[in-house]
């Protein structure tokens, strides 16, 4: 049988679909998976005035701050992607989003912040900022939450499962399932993009909220009228890689190849796909 549930977390609807033989075991397993997502949400929300991340943003410029294992893992991954993409992925762009009112300004947060991931110093499970800055992990934490929820379902012996957090999706199972992506200009419509058995797909776009993505170098708005989907082995990498592709598609292909990942970019007129051989136009078939 198949159990399908949804709860509001991470600023979106999180859906879990789990397959197994026993309803009560599926209920318990999905309950634990949602609890993992809730814990990641509580630790990593920039929006919340009392999340662990907000505490770090308040305190880390004055000295070392201890991190929970979840937060330390995501900080390490964020810095790794920042390094590998030479700053195309940058967890310190939150200053712009606070200045433009898209993220809240909590009491006690530093003002006049820089955008410079190099000023984030991570040492195992503690962190400090060597310049005033604000870290927002939403470009990667949603993917991480999906991964840990899926790992929890796997550990509980669920036969097959899909976790979809508003566009960050991962699954495992014996059967491949179709993955769809919305058209950037008409989010009510969708394309059949891939068949996924074990792996993840993450999409970044501005379907319903404009200007949410910025280029770390220039502050320019990204993804206007465009969507970027990355298919990779895990959702955190897929999530981070969408930001790299959105910032500079041409420079992203090497990094995609290193992660054995594919990207598909859609805009109002065409679809392009990046694999190990670089970027190609994707032929489209219109079925009317």
């Amino acid at each position: 049988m198949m159990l399908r549930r949804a709860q509001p977390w991470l600023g979106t609807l999180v859906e879990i679909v789990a397959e197994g033989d026993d309803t009560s075991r599926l209920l318990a397993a999905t309950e634990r998976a949602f609890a993992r997502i809730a814990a990641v949400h509580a630790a990593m929300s920039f929006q919340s005035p009392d999340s662990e991340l907000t505490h770090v943003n308040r305190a880390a410029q004055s000295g070392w701050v201890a991190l929970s294992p979840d937060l330390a893992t995501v900080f390490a991954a964020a810095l790794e992607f920042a390094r590998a993409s030479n700053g195309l992925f940058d967890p310190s762009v939150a200053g712009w989003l606070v200045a433009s009112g898209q993220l809240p300004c909590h009491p006690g947060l530093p003002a006049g912040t820089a955008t410079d991931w190099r000023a984030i110093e991570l040492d195992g499970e503690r962190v400090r900022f060597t310049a005033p800055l604000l870290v927002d992990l939403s470009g990667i934490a949603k993917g991480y939450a999906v991964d840990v929820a899926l790992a929890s379902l796997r550990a509980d012996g669920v036969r097959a499962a899909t976790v979809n957090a508003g566009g960050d999706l991962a699954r495992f199972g014996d059967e491949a399932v179709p993955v769809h992506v919305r058209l950037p200009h008409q989010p009510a419509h969708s394309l059949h993009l891939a068949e996924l058995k074990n792996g993840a797909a993450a999409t970044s776009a501005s379907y319903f909220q404009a200007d949410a993505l910025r280029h770390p170098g220039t502050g320019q708005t990204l993804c206007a009228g465009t969507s970027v989907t990355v298919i990779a082995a895990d959702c955190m990498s897929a999530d981070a890689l969408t930001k790299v592709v959105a910032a500079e598609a041409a420079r992203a292909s090497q990094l995609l190849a290193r992660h054995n990942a594919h990207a598909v970019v859609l805009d109002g007129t065409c679809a392009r796909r990046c694999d190990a051989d670089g970027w190609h136009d994707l032929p489209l078939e219109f079925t009317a």
Partner: protein
Amino acid sequence: MSNSPNWLILPVACVPLVAAAPAFAVQYMTTEAAQKLLFPAASAFVSQPVRLDAVQKKAVEKAAGVRMRYPEQPVWQVMENGKPAGWFVLDEVYGKHEFITYAVALDATGAVRGVEILEYRETHGGQIVNPKWRAQFDGKRFGAPLKLDKDIQNISGATLSCKHIAEGVRRVLAIHAVALK
């Protein structure tokens, strides 16, 4: 398309464009199933719909900062071994394109114990695809007839934000403060 990783059964070589506006809808759970899930130890759910008078309605709207569409709210008092254990509140929120039915569980002190989505619907009307997309394919239409989106799942691409649900939960908490304490 070289070196396809084994976790991927390839991105379709050619992308079929779904041409109908989907009436995307998912039924997650019945009210009864949600009651059982949110209050596994309950012995009874006593239906006790809340009907607010004009003064209460105003108080709720002021406290929650959102408008109340209906003055009546479906509410159940939850009993465990004959003692009140909390409230089960059914609610609906509407966005420009979405319609969500969900349940809020409040414990005996009125704190939120859980939120579970019962039904999600996107209500996009009518017409289709950007003319630019369409233009590309004029004269070369082939493939299967379109697949209506009833079976479309696994949409990778942001759903609408859950802002409306957050507002709804705020309203439910205000209703509790005004009428259920």
